[in-house]
């Protein structure tokens, strides 16, 4: 066990790192509710970038529309806060135009999988070197708690007032099926794991997805009686099953659980590299 003093010191170091990456000219506070998981994910991203030693000038953050998609605005990188669902094609333009840039997409479950679902599968298929962080809170936060493509069956939202009659997407499985070469799931309870997974995703060449399960206590939590942020984090802790353990479990046993960890990590040719080969061939570069 760390002493109180040690813990305090570690916390201070963490917040010092955070402060280095917050936009100096942006007026705070953020738009997020106190205790929202978006802030936790933001912290993990910053620490991963800091650990990798990227310069601020080489990082570009692109997002769509939603509470989660507000993140890039607060961070001291070049940021493109785009339209609902379209972060990935905008990011594709940025990355393909300037392949040396590290392009990170921040998106929500509605943004990525409903209105942006088509772009999502095609970004996976193309295997373009972009890291997408999908903050999955099972609901539309920004617009006040409507059902999303990840809202579980029977769950409540303002547009499923009698319980959701639809089936839901599993974002990580969808990404793997569509061809993403790095896929991992984590939750806002599992912060060290999240940090490490984002680091791996950023280092991975090709399309990487980190599904960060997060709490929207304001809407999903309240409508489904899951309690305050702390109660929701404990729930994530209890539902989490590490991928290695999940391998030996039946679908029935895994029903309602959150399989966490790196789910896919493979190598395939990357889109920008392959295109560059075509360009080089025209220019006689061997």
């Amino acid at each position, binding site marked *: 066990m760390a002493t109180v003093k040690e813990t305090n010191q570690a916390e201070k170091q963490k917040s010092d790192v955070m402060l280095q990456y917050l*936009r100096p*000219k*942006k*007026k705070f506070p953020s738009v997020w509710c106190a205790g929202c998981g978006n802030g936790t994910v933001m912290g993990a991203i910053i620490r991963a970038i800091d650990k990798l030693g990227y310069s*601020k*000038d*080489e990082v*570009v953050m*692109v997002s769509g529309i939603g509470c989660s998609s507000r993140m*890039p*605005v607060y961070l*001291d*990188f*070049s*940021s*493109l*806060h*785009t*339209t609902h669902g*379209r972060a990935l*094609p*905008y*990011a*594709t*333009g*940025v990355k*393909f*135009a*300037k392949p*040396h*840039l590290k392009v990170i997409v921040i998106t929500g479950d509605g943004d990525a999988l409903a209105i942006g679902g*088509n*772009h999502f599968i*095609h970004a996976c298929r193309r295997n373009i070197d972009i890291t997408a962080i999908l903050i999955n809170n099972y609901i539309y936060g920004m617009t006040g708690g409507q059902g999303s493509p990840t809202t579980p069956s029977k769950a409540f939202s303002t547009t499923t007032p009698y319980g959701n009659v639809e089936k839901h997407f599993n974002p990580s499985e969808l990404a793997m099926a569509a061809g993403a070469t790095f896929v991992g799931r984590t939750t806002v309870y599992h912060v060290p794991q999240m940090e490490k997974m984002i680091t791996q995703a950023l280092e991975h060449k090709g399309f990487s997805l980190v599904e960060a399960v997060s709490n929207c206590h304001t809407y999903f939590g309240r409508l489904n009686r899951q309690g305050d942020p702390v109660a929701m984090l404990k729930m994530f802790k209890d539902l989490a099953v590490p991928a290695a353990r999940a391998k030996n479990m039946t679908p029935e046993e895994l029903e309602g659980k959150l399989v966490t960890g790196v789910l896919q990590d493979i190598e395939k040719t990357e889109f920008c590299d392959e*295109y560059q080969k*075509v*360009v080089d061939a*025209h*220019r006689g570069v061997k």
Partner: protein
Amino acid sequence: MAIKKRHLMLGNLACVHGAIYAGMRFFAGYPITPSTEVAEGCARELPKIGGKFIQMEDEIGSIAAIVGASVAGLKSMTATSGPGYSLMVENIGYAYMTETPVVVINVQRGGPSTGMPTKGSQADTMQARWGTHGDYTAIAVAPSTVQECLTETIRAFNLAERFRTPVTVLLDEVIAHSREMVTIPEKGEFKVYDRVKPTCTPEEYVPFEMTPNGVSPMAGFGEGYRFNVTGLTHDTMGFTTNRPEEVSPKLDKLANKILKYRDETVKMRTEMMDGAEIAFISYGSVSRAALQAVMLARKAGVKVGTVQLYTIWPFPEKQLREICAGCKKVIVGELNMGQMIYEVERVLPNNIKIHSIQRYDGEFLTPMQLLEKLDEVL
């Protein structure tokens, strides 16, 4: 002087050569008749010059990708037809709001909906002006020959870069799919305008700064200036604002940066307007028919001239009023149920009688039809 090489070329391909001449190095698109040859031409030509081509999953992805690429510093373009243009308009609005230069070629077909993929039309004239929601000022240009497909695409890029704004090139299927002789200009023959970049330090950079001409210097991502770009109404730093004292100046900027220089955006061609009592007013393929009709009518002693618009938006109000000042009548010819005529009616004084001839059956207006109309209004 050396004799220039001329090429037999499709209108759509001339757009590609014009774009490359203007410095286009990024194209994203989704195939759609009658614009597909633009994408195919870019797929072939861009890798040869180190440029980038990508076929996206749809037109929404295409416009998003070119805006992203432009923010990253490359001159970017897409090409489509009505159904695709309709899908693009939300994100064309994003380009207006974020002041991102891009060129969108719309090879118009009949509509609404899927309409007539292989038939010409000018029915997106108003959409190019009012297509996306909100308040903004649009620029659209329109060629009438294959050579002009090349030159108007260059002009579209120059206007986009100069004013930091999306520009639409309105083609119609007739010109896009015509084959005519084209001369590819030598380097330096046409002015190529590049966006103004900041010269200040990153600390001093105000990405949406209010400047005397309304255009803020534009850094590319990764060039050492870190800034925020958002489609939300924003202040000069690029951060969201709802403050009335910041909102209207932003919207005024979007309009005024163009309207202040609207005379410089105007391009029109007038033929036989000296002493003309009647004028045809048209753009695109209709202007070609009008020119022939006017030549024939003049031989028969009719005092008629023709005005061809190359800049459709902003509509050349003052210039049209001046040119038509001596006319008693004008005839507005369009391949739609009447769109540009609203502008002509708005602009010309009451003493000029405004007639129209419209065709929207997929065929183009012939000189004979225009002559018949002329007869009717004489």
